[in-house]
């Protein structure tokens, strides 16, 4: 068995200085206050993003005019959406350019963006320009007759058309 080493009663200068209780309490108080403040700030970082965003309703009703030709674009007033009826049914394409949010204009060969020259085909695929994605197709519900409900908040797969009997 080994003999336990003799422990000197006098403190070596290499020993750590024990922290006085007063210093410990002071440090603990400072760190508690600091972390409370930090967590409170973290909670406040939610402030710039409201729980409900003040956007207008994205669902709206549209009645297509009787005289609307097959395949001709119809733009409901005040909405950046093109509604088209063709032989297969009715569909809606968003007019918001996928590049930087300008409103594209319907043209003979599809859609032209006035801001940075993106061009889209009639079904919204990118033909040229900086747009990274095709135009969005939007969810359409038939509400009887010539009336349809369009939801700008819900995108559907390109080519989805609502058949009307």
């Amino acid at each position, binding site marked *: 068995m080994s003999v336990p080493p003799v422990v000197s009663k006098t403190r070596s200068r290499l020993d750590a200085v024990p922290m006085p209780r007063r210093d410990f309490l002071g440090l603990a108080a400072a760190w508690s206050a600091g972390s409370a403040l930090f967590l409170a700030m973290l909670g406040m970082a939610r402030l*710039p*993003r*409201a729980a409900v*965003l*003040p*956007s207008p309703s994205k669902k709206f009703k549209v009645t297509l005019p009787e005289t609307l030709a097959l395949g001709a674009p119809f733009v409901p007033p*005040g*909405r*950046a959406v093109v509604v088209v009826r063709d032989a297969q049914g009715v569909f809606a394409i968003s007019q918001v350019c996928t*590049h*930087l*949010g*300008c*409103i594209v204009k319907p043209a003979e060969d599809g859609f*032209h*963006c*006035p*801001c*940075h*020259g993106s061009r889209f085909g009639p079904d919204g695929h*990118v*033909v*040229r*320009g*900086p747009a*990274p*994605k095709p135009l969005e197709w939007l969810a359409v519900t038939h509400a009887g007759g010539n009336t349809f409900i369009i939801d700008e908040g819900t995108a559907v797969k390109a080519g989805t058309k609502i058949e009307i009997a």
Partner: protein
Amino acid sequence: MSTTPPIVETAAAPATRRFLDNLRHTPREFLASAVRSGRPQSDRSRSSFVFSSLFLHLHSVRVHRWSLRWRTTAGLGVITAAAFVITIITGILLMFYYKPYPDVAYLSMKDIHFVVPTGRFIRNLHRWAANVMVVGVFLHMARVFYTSAYRRPREFNWIVGMGLLAVTLGMSFTGYLLPWDQLAFWAITIGANIAQSPREVTDALHLTAHFDPGGLQKLILLGSETVGEEALIRFYLLHVMILPLVLCALLGVHMWRVRKDGGLARPADADARLGPPAHPVYPTFTEEPHKTYQLAAVVRGTSPAVGAGPENTVPAMPHLFWAELGAFMFTVALCLVLSLWKDAPLKELANAAVPENPAKAPWYFLGLQELVAFSAFMGGMGIPMVVLLGLGLIPFLERETSGTGDWFGGPGGWRLVLRSAAFGLGSVLLVETIAIHYGWIRQWWPAAPQLLITCLNPGTVIAAAYAVYSLLLVKRYDSTRAGAAALFTCFLCGYIVLTVIGVHFRGPNWDFYWSPSQWPVH
């Protein structure tokens, strides 16, 4: 009985006489009490005139003759600060009438324009001073760069200056929305979507559903998904409160550091090149000081007289203040003339259904808009971030000493700058010509993956060409300064060319037109 004897003088004159005397002396006494040091006549009172004033003591008491030469700075920093002062004064005046709410914002702008006496003029001044400020910031930065004045110990002040550049551009951008006209609405719509453009990358990687920093940035900027009342309030708050306060704080640090870092940078042999002053400068050290004082931990180096020979400084009061006043008055005059010459634009009321065509941002962002027209993310965020990072690293990556304080000093000199300018202009014009004439990847290969276009578009090609060119120059001149000068010059040229193209040669649908007179009528 009182023990203090009565004052003889006051006892001699009747109180009414003393009252009149005091009244007569009040203006003089008031001035003496305000300017505590008395008339700045002697060298000593000129010093205390500066350091006993809250507003002047950002300046050093004496200023080197090199700093006062017109060609050292062209007064660009002071001109920029003066333009800021003008925007503050005119901005406060505009706030009397401007109402930051979508229903009335445009109407209040119309009021300012047509109803409020001098309203249009004040708004013109505000707008032109903001433009002068932007130009001033860029020119000032170019001056500091081309005189290598960012070097030790001024590295930190270069970074502060970049902060000032960013805040200046931010103030211009936020101010652009406030009129709530077509120009404002669509420029900010585009700007907010640039903030959202990281989606271009996250979409391509199918990450957006889980990780969408772009969408978050836009949402926080606008407070909504579209530019509306929340966005207007946010931009207003940033424009009139947050950014000006940040700018004031940074400006204070910037000017303070100019003084603390030893005044303006000057060549080591500035004294010899300046020669003896035309007028006797007091105090003149006619011989080398016998002693220097190491003011350890207080100032750097040995002070007060570092080095030897004539100190070659003159009192800041009046020499520096006259120069600053001159620059200030020049700025005021410039803004006045510009305001009388051309009104700030005000288009039709904002219409969320019909974009302005072409929708152009403020002119100093049109270089970026030209890049954005190739890739939203690279043009609007990627390349600007790389450029800002590169600018910030300059003083740390380039630590040479030759040519400090001299225009186009260091290896290569102005020849290198000219050569880089030629390369910079040539490559940006070549790439733009190809892009305008032949189109880009999407026209040749419609199914090209978006990531390819994001990584390989005219903007990135130009930036890469510049980077390679300056690396070659680092090698050729065996000098990091040569590379930095080449890179800075190239990017400056690229920025100018892209801005000119964006301002003048881009028309409806961002198509190329040789002149705005060829734009189709729509």
